[in-house]
């Protein structure tokens, strides 16, 4: 049983409290989902439960917190570790030692658990999270999903009653996220463990939750209830719930199966296939019979692909299918072993990377790889200097990317979404013709994602060629003109977004899955045709 009463908390050096007069109760054995935009206090709320707030962060806390009868504010996180286990966002950053087994025993050795007991608990958690084959592995050799499951197992060795997870899947691809969520679901149903989880992307998790808490941020009131009730009142929701709200389905469907139970929507009859995209002029990128292998292991096996300006192409496929290798060819970081790559008519083997990147801007997956300057404006100026371009007032570009007010801020202090856009701005500052984005929606909330979609549309209107590597089917549905799917280093699908998604079971948006019609990729598409 968890009880919060009139909880108010302010970070050190902050003027506004991030949690304001919050009261709630959580029953044992509940699966609770905490949602809300970045900066709304989701993480803070979770950290109050094991005393990291205020012990680790400082700041000022009033009101009361009780977890299983213990007050985390009076106790230390150290004492709370036996009651509340906490798993963090980034699977990479939680590990202290280098092998799975020694990581699992780290907390127990510290807590002076007797060796015989340790042996037993290690075997138990290995089974519970289904990671027995990994026990001797080095952590650096694990995949993201495996790492996150090891992190959960390491927490469970202390036998907490409550498991708290702060966006545990936001850095993972869909398959890995699925692995983690299934493991959590099992812990909840089989062992009756209380699970409290924060998440941006509700479509993956919402069907598991008994309860949804929405923190609107900026002093708004908490919305609390079953997922069906709360989704009705949240500003940004998954497409399925959004459609349900618009057409008046009650209760709101959380899964495709639930939505199918409602009578079919009265949609207009098919008015013939949509116009084929015109492919006028010289392609911006032309890839011919491209082969590439890393030390004998083929990564790309005969890719043929052309893209034109004014279009957004989504490049999809599971991890290791060759997407990154392909991107690296477009900026000259790799050279074709056979075949050729032409960028704006220039053969990448004959031009330096330095020349090539004047035409092609590449935004890496992790914006932290780029950002190091003292202010956002300096960051942009650095790119222009690197390209020997004259100084230029970045005001307009920053405004277009919704960064207008952040010009003099330290980039590393910004939120994930803002940092992502600063990285994009740092690339766009060089005015490239072709823009490559690697997994740009990772860790973004709905609002930030919406801004990104707007920006991509604007780039497209400006006649630029945009290639987005993404696992996010909803982003592809909203922005892409065309979807290319890679598998084993080959193109297995290439066509207009609707057609590709209608044919695929995995790479399709919720609307396509529901209606199985290539005309309806997003909720607005459906509403437009609603009679």
């Amino acid at each position, binding site marked *: 049983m968890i009880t919060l009463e009139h909880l108010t908390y302010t970070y*050190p050096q902050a003027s506004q409290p991030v949690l304001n007069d919050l009261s709630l109760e959580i029953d044992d054995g509940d699966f609770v989902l905490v949602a809300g935009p970045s900066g709304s206090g989701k993480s803070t709320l979770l950290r109050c439960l094991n005393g990291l707030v205020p012990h680790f962060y*400082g700041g000022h806390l009033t009101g009361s917190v009780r977890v299983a009868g213990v007050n985390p504010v009076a106790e230390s996180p150290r004492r709370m570790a036996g009651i509340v286990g906490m798993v963090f966002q980034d699977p990479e950053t939680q590990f202290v030692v280098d092998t799975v087994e020694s990581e699992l025993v780290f907390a127990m050795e510290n807590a002076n658990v007797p060796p015989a007991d340790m042996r037993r608990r290690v075997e138990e958690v290995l089974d519970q999270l289904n990671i027995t084959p990994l026990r001797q592995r080095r952590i650096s050799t694990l995949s993201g999903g495996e790492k996150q499951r090891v992190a959960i197992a390491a927490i469970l060795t202390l036998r907490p009653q409550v498991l708290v997870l702060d966006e545990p899947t936001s850095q993972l691809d869909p398959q890995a996220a699925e692995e983690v969520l299934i493991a959590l679901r099992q812990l909840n149903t089989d062992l009756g463990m209380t699970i409290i989880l924060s998440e941006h992307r509700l479509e993956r998790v919402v069907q598991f939750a008994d309860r949804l808490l929405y923190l609107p941020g900026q002093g708004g009131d908490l919305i609390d209830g079953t997922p069906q009730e709360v989704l009705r009142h949240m500003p940004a929701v998954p497409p399925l719930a959004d459609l349900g709200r618009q057409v008046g389905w009650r209760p709101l469907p959380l899964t495709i199966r639930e939505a199918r139970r409602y009578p079919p929507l009265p949609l207009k009859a098919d008015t013939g296939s949509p116009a084929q995209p015109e492919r006028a002029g010289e392609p911006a990128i032309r890839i011919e019979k491209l082969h590439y292998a890393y030390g004998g292991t083929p990564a790309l096996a005969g890719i043929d692909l052309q893209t034109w300006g004014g279009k957004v192409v989504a490049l999809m496929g599971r991890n290791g299918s060759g997407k990154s290798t392909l991107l690296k060819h477009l900026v000259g970081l790799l050279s074709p072993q056979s075949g050729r790559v032409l960028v704006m008519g220039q053969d990448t083997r004959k031009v330096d990377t330095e020349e090539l990147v004047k035409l092609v801007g590449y935004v890496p997956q992790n914006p932290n790889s780029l950002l*190091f300057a*003292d202010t956002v404006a300096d960051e942009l100026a650095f790119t222009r200097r690197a390209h020997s371009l004259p100084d230029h007032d970045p005001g307009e570009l920053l405004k277009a990317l919704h960064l207008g007010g952040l010009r003099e801020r*330290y980039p590393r202090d910004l939120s994930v979404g803002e940092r992502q856009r600063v990285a994009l701005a740092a690339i766009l500052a060089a005015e490239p013709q072709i823009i490559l984005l690697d997994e740009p929606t990772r860790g973004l909330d709905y609002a930030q994602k919406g801004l990104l979609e707007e920006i991509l549309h604007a780039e497209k209107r400006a006649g630029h060629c945009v290639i987005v590597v993404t696992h996010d089917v909803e982003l592809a549905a909203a922005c892409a003109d065309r979807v290319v799917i890679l598998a084993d280093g080959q193109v297995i699908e290439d066509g207009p977004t609707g057609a590709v998604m209608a044919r695929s079971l995995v790479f399709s948006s919720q609307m396509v899955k529901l209606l199985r019609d290539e005309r309806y990729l997003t909720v607005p598409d459906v509403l437009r045709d609603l009679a």
Partner: protein
Amino acid sequence: MRTLRAVNNAAMALASLIGLVAFLYPFFNLNLDQGDPNWGAHSQDAPLLMVILVVVSLVSLMATLSSGRMNSKTIAMLGILTAVNAVLRAVPGPAGFSAMYVLPIVAGYVFGSHFGFLLGTLSVMVSALIGAGVGPWLPYQMIAVGWIGLSSGWLPKLADRRLELGMLVVWGVLWGILFGALMNLWFWPFIYQEQQANMYWQPGLGLGEGLRRYAVFYLATSAWWDLAGAVGNALLVGLFGMPLLKLLKRFQRRFFFKVD
């Protein structure tokens, strides 16, 4: 608590003194009377004793630092920076000089002597474990790089940023030279060449003669090398000093707040 801190500081000072004696042992040692029948028997004891003393000094320093309560932030920060520095060691800087000394200097200056000492010492250890190798030179290097960090914590905290950077650059030069001179000492007693006896160690040298010979040895062999190293050190501190100072101070403000 205050007494404990004073005792610990005294222990650190004594342990450092023992380390220094160990480094300088070739100079002190053994103006044994050459007519003494034991002369031959003890002529090789000095190197062994040096090693014992260095290890004792290192162990005492670490035990003293470990006895204090480092919190998890300090430990995590030290662990991560230790890795960064260990890898920087492998990166050749200007004049073939390793970039390993910049971080202990700047971090020692910002976070204090104890942090600096542990960062220096442990990054040498990590770099040994990831490939540079565990060998007899290791304790000497650990102590010497540790001292760089330790002493950087004693520098006065200056408000003016340029002055601050200038001070650290000069500090880098000084340590570049001193470090080379110290590190020669671990193997100096092992090498000897008859012809140029005036620059090699022999059992039974007095302090004056030892220093004189070492000076000749130093000038003849490693002085130029070390001077280049010192310049390299200064260039690196000049390049990275300012952004690192800003960064570390930012993190200091953010995470090492005082709990009231």
